[in-house]
């Protein structure tokens, strides 16, 4: 029966081929699109799976790069029970490497406090060193640096070479490779050197990386640290405060950008007002505080420090990929709809052409069920083949993209996704064949034969 079905498809090879291509491309598109989400998820788990500690940074800042917190808070955090080590970090975007502007993939100067960094039980970068050495105490105050394999390859640098970053000649003393495209972007230096190079505020750092002692549960520790900094004064991070840092305080444009930014973040007006209130409060500290803060607001008041564990980051990104999945699902849906219409069309045409054949077969004792089985066998074969080819084509596209843009993106199609693609495509084939198959059963064998 399947041989017969294959024979029937082969005898209409051009049409079958076109239908197959439609399916193949739809499934390849599906695999390709979902590999974006898959790749993101994999990158996320690759990245955050390795980070066991906690990051404390400015509330609202999406990543440490945009965060500014007082340097002195590090000591305070270190005193909170459950915190073993506090490592201060400064992150800054690199503009030029070897005299060429850096656009994509981005590169970051990562300044770390060397003495505390060396005390960490787990250091993602330290553990990822594959050539040379990690920074040591002697590197404090020097331009000795550690770069990723990615960066070294991009600029054809070897261990011991110098590399020009933002106009500074740095000596490469170590090479690392974490395998995560989110992590392999850092050029690691002593924190004070980064501070000087980037003219970073002497009393601030980007964030603190904390390692737990293990006595206090993670969730509780996060809560305790947040509580400790409740009510402290630190303006929430606003993207415009970076761009317009030098502009005057009462800039109309700034207020406008602020409100746009706030509404984009989905904050209500109430919150906006509240943050304005707080800015006001900063200025006229003592007088305003008593007047504006009702007891309720004090209760609601948030911490001046945002504390996140790696799993928090992971969860956030997972939410994002879940949203992405919906979007990708919609996009794929269109392709799939076209594919299924193309199957129905192909099968209906081939069925109409063969009405006489089915009449003959029925005259020879084929039941309606047999005919339906034959037609759905043909269409499911189309679906199955389309699924396999689509999966292969999708994989090929993914390999090409991953190879061509190795440092920017990472797409990943899981075996589960591929299997789903094939099953889904086969189901499409069966469903697409059912209507044409049912169509044949309305005709008696003689009607069919008389047509011929």
């Amino acid at each position, binding site marked *: 029966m399947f041989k*017969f079905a294959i024979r029937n498809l082969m005898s209409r090879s051009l049409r079958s081929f076109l239908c197959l291509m439609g399916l193949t491309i739809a499934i390849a598109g599906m695999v390709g699109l979902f590999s974006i989400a898959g790749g993101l998820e994999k990158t996320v788990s690759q990245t955050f799976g390795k980070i066991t500690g906690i990051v404390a940074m400015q509330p609202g800042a999406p990543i440490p790069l945009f965060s500014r917190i007082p340097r002195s808070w590090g000591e305070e955090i270190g005193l909170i029970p459950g915190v073993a080590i506090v490592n201060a970090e400064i992150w800054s975007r690199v503009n030029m490497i070897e005299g060429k502007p850096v656009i994509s993939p981005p590169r970051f100067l990562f300044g770390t406090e060397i003495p505390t960094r060396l005390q960490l039980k787990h250091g993602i970068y330290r553990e990822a060193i594959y050539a040379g050495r990690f920074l040591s105490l002697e590197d404090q105050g020097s331009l000795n640096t550690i770069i990723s394999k990615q960066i070294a390859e991009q600029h054809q640098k070897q261990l011991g070479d110098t590399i020009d970053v933002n106009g500074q000649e740095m000596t490469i003393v170590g090479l690392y490779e974490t395998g995560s495209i989110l992590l392999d972007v850092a050029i690691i230096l002593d924190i004070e050197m980064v501070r000087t190079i980037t003219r970073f505020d002497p009393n601030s750092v980007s964030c603190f990386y904390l390692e737990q002692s293990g006595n206090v549960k993670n969730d509780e520790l996060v809560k305790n640290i947040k509580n400790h900094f409740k009510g402290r004064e630190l303006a929430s991070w606003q993207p415009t405060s970076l761009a317009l840092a030098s502009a005057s305080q009462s800039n109309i444009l700034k207020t406008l950008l602020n409100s746009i930014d706030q509404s984009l973040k989905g904050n209500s007006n109430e919150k906006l007002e509240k943050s304005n209130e707080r800015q006001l409060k900063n200025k006229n500290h003592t007088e305003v505080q008593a007047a504006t803060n009702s007891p309720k607001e004090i209760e609601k008041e948030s911490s001046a420090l945002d504390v996140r564990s790696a799993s928090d980051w992971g969860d956030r990104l997972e939410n994002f990929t879940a949203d992405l999945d919906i979007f990708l699902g919609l996009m794929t849906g269109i392709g799939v709809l076209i594919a299924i219409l193309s199957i129905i069309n192909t099968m209906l045409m081939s069925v109409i052409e063969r009405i006489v054949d089915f009449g003959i077969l029925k005259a020879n004792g084929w039941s309606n069920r047999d005919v339906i089985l034959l037609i759905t066998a043909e269409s499911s074969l189309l679906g199955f083949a389309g699924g396999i080819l689509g999966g292969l084509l999708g994989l090929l596209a993914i390999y090409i993209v991953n190879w061509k843009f190795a440092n920017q993106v990472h797409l990943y199609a899981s075996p589960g996704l591929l299997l789903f693609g094939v099953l889904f495509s086969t189901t499409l084939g069966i469903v697409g064949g059912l209507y044409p198959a049912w169509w044949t059963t309305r005709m008696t064998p003689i009607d069919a034969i008389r047509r011929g």
Partner: protein
Amino acid sequence: MIEVRNVEKIHQTGETEVRALQGVSCNFPGQVFSFILGPSGSGKSTLLYLMGALDKPTSGEIFVQNRSLSTLNRTERDTYRREKVGFVFQNFNLLKNLNALENVLAPYLPLGVSTEQKKRAEELLKQVGLGQRITHRPSQLSGGEQQRVAIARALLKRPLLILADEPTGELDTQTGAEIFQCLRDVSDQYKTTVVIVTHDERYIRDTDFILRLRDGKIAE
């Protein structure tokens, strides 16, 4: 063997009714060559299809081996056609993308074809003179050869009954005579009842049973 009892068949196409058969009664004897004769449109094909359970009479009954076809359910009708009746049509009606052998085996594809059936199909093709053309497609065969494939297909099931609707209608006289000879040979050998619709009276022999139709009625 086949008893047609007061059969009426009205074809309904939209508003118009065509009374193709108007109360036909007759008895086709078993293991004999029978002919249904009559002008075009007299209801010959309609009667043949009713006997093959391809269609149901509007009223009246048809008994085959004393069993009324109208009592069969859908599955039993399929089985009846697959196992008891071999059809041969005017325009050969082979499946174009199957070769001769596969066409002979086509009725059994859904059930799975046994090697024994395959061997028998080859023998039957040899018997109807197509031993050298087993793997030819219908397009590579002449009209007469195609009709022989159809006869072999009808014979594979060792049918009780072979129903042929103008089997030589599209063939030249010489080939037509050969087909009739072929049908007579296998009928003798397998003791099969054969009912043939035709308007060519040249091949009729004295021993054959003849039914003449005119305007849906038996012509006296």
